[in-house]
């Protein structure tokens, strides 16, 4: 469904509601789908990722687990290899280190190491992102970390519409999918979301294919490539820039693995300038990957390039410092102006 078609559906939903709707629909359709994680049953997910699921599906299918990430994420791998379709939630992506072997060495690699005689059809959902001053162990996005190692599909929705379609796809996929939702986009009561992520969402099910970026705003002068929360910050910047006579195109990657390099390249061929915006650390990350993709494919298309990302520092606690390292709309606008010069 295109952006125009989305507008035609009347009902809007928050990103968390849209995600949960897809999960519930898949759980109704397939007994083998179940959800486990910390505080996902009675609490409904700290970030509202499972609100209402316990009431409909009961404790056997919506399972609170001990704070034992190695055990339950590994159990999801085992259940998936046994043919079930578990969804396992890692409450904060920052906690990945506790269970990294199960994620990187088991979940991601067993298909390959078994010569594809085994598959791991599970979804690892996890909350990412800062902007609420929770310091270095609870504020990372780590997009690059998960997209870097082979064997996992990596999904980062930025709107309710995308969140639902991508979740349907993630649960049906026969490979492990890491579904990274930004806390600031979910529509949680205690963490106000910007207006953008609450979009029209059809009640019926639909899928959004992996590896298909979405042009969230068309423009002729500069291509801005981003994902997650920063789609909305880039769109805000684009509105400011429009008043200055700069017409920015904003591309939402939506999935990092597979990555839609073609849409980015086409846009850069049109605009000639590229700005990549990421809430992850700059070095060895999404920004470098996108820029090198374009440079490898068509160096001549690239007249100017900038990247806007978190400098290589852990996310600081105190507000002035956190604001300084996480790119804001004005940082994006500034980068766009500088490539336009």
């Amino acid at each position, binding site marked *: 469904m295109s952006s125009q078609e989305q507008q035609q559906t009347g009902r809007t939903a928050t990103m968390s509601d849209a995600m949960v709707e897809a999960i519930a629909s898949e759980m109704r359709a397939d007994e083998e789908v179940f959800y486990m994680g910390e505080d996902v049953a009675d609490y409904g997910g700290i970030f509202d990722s499972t609100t209402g699921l316990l009431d409909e599906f009961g404790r056997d299918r919506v399972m609170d687990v001990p704070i034992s990430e190695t055990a339950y994420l590994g159990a999801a791998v085992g259940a998936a290899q046994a043919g079930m379709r578990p969804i396992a939630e890692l409450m904060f992506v920052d906690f990945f280190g506790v269970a990294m072997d199960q994620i990187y060495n088991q979940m991601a690699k067993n298909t390959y190491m078994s010569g594809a005689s085994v598959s791991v059809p599970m979804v690892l959902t996890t909350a990412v992102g800062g*902007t609420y001053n929770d310091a270095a162990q609870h504020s990372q996005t780590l997009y690059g970390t998960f997209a870097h190692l082979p064997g996992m599909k990596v999904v980062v929705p930025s709107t309710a519409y995308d969140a639902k379609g991508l979740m349907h796809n993630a649960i049906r996929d026969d490979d492990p999918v890491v579904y990274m939702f930004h806390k600031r986009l979910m529509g949680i009561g205690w963490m106000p979301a910007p207006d953008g992520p609450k979009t029209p969402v059809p009640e019926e099910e639909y899928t959004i294919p992996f590896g298909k970026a979405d042009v969230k705003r068309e423009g002729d002068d500069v291509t801005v490539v981003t994902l997650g929360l920063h789609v909305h910050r880039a769109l805000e910047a684009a509105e400011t820039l429009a008043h200055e006579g700069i017409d920015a195109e904003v591309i939402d990657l939506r999935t990092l693995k597979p990555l839609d390099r073609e849409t980015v390249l086409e846009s850069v061929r049109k605009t000639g300038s590229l700005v990549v915006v990421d809430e992850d650390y700059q070095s060895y990350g999404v920004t470098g990957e996108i820029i090198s993709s374009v440079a490898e494919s068509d160096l001549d298309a690239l007249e100017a390039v900038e990247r806007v990302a978190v400098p290589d520092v852990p996310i600081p606690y105190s507000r002035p410092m956190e604001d300084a390292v996480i790119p804001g709309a004005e940082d994006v606008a500034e980068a766009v102006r500088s490539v336009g010069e």
Partner: protein
Amino acid sequence: MYEDMVTARLYEERLQEEYMEGKRPGFDISAGEVPGELHLAAGQEAAAVGVCHHLRDDDTVTAPHRPHHVAIAKGVDLKRMTAEIFGRETGLCHGKGGHMHLFDPDVNFACSGIIAQGCPPAVGAGMAAKKRNTDSVAVAYLGEGAIDQGGFLESLNMASVHDLPVVFVIEDNDWAISMPKERVTSPQDGSARADGFDMHGVRVDSDDARAVYEAGAEAVGRARDGNGPTVLEVQVHRRMGHFMGDPETYRPEEDQERAAERDSIERLAADMREFGIDDEELEEIRDRAAERVDEAVTWAKQQPLPEPEAAHDHVFTNPPSGVTDEEPEFSDAGAAAGGDD
């Protein structure tokens, strides 16, 4: 001991008020004077003071994400700790760490926001003491929700097999966020974990600070005398939600009432009265504690916020060339507090 418990309680009550400043109406976690999440420990004071009162400055304590009562009992600089919680430049960590990540090397105190991950460093501190042939000990605090973590269980084995001077203190408040112990942990007696690792385990089944003090004397004494590690579990009660803003819809009212009724501070006060300490003396102690809390908070709020650029400092102790690590300029107040010299 009583004074530290009262200080911790008054401190938590004051922080609760300060935290809500600017976060209303509604609850916006990213607004107000105190940034980020806040996990309060009112009701858990007995476990902190009962053990820490046997410790010296050269003994190490690692605390979890709910650290204030333990920090106070260990003698962490209250003013600089408060400044850190308010995200100020002169805070213990220059505003980088925040309330879950307090470091005070003067009294060998540290904490981590990741469940059970303070246990391995405590083992390391115990190892250092043993190698250096000193009689200092290490104490790792963790909640009962953390005892299913690999980091804890692996640490027990290391401490036991190397006969290290480590005390693991489990604060059993019955709740791992929204997960009641009986649904996620087996067996439920955390001190019984010690049996499997051939070490001492003891459980104090009440909020009785005197009983914890006695058990703490034995456990710390055992470590100090070179007789190996102990698991000491203390029943405490979480009077508040897991974090500020927690709606606690998962928690039965009886449990909240029970937590409010079983108050270790009132219990200790009653004991003291029996020993002939009159109300006037208790009130004096309370006034002293209140004054100390007020001084710390008042001082902290007068401290400057860090400059945004300071976010780039302190990534390394010995920065590689090309990485800036200029010390932020400190105000006189910071220098007076022993800030950075």
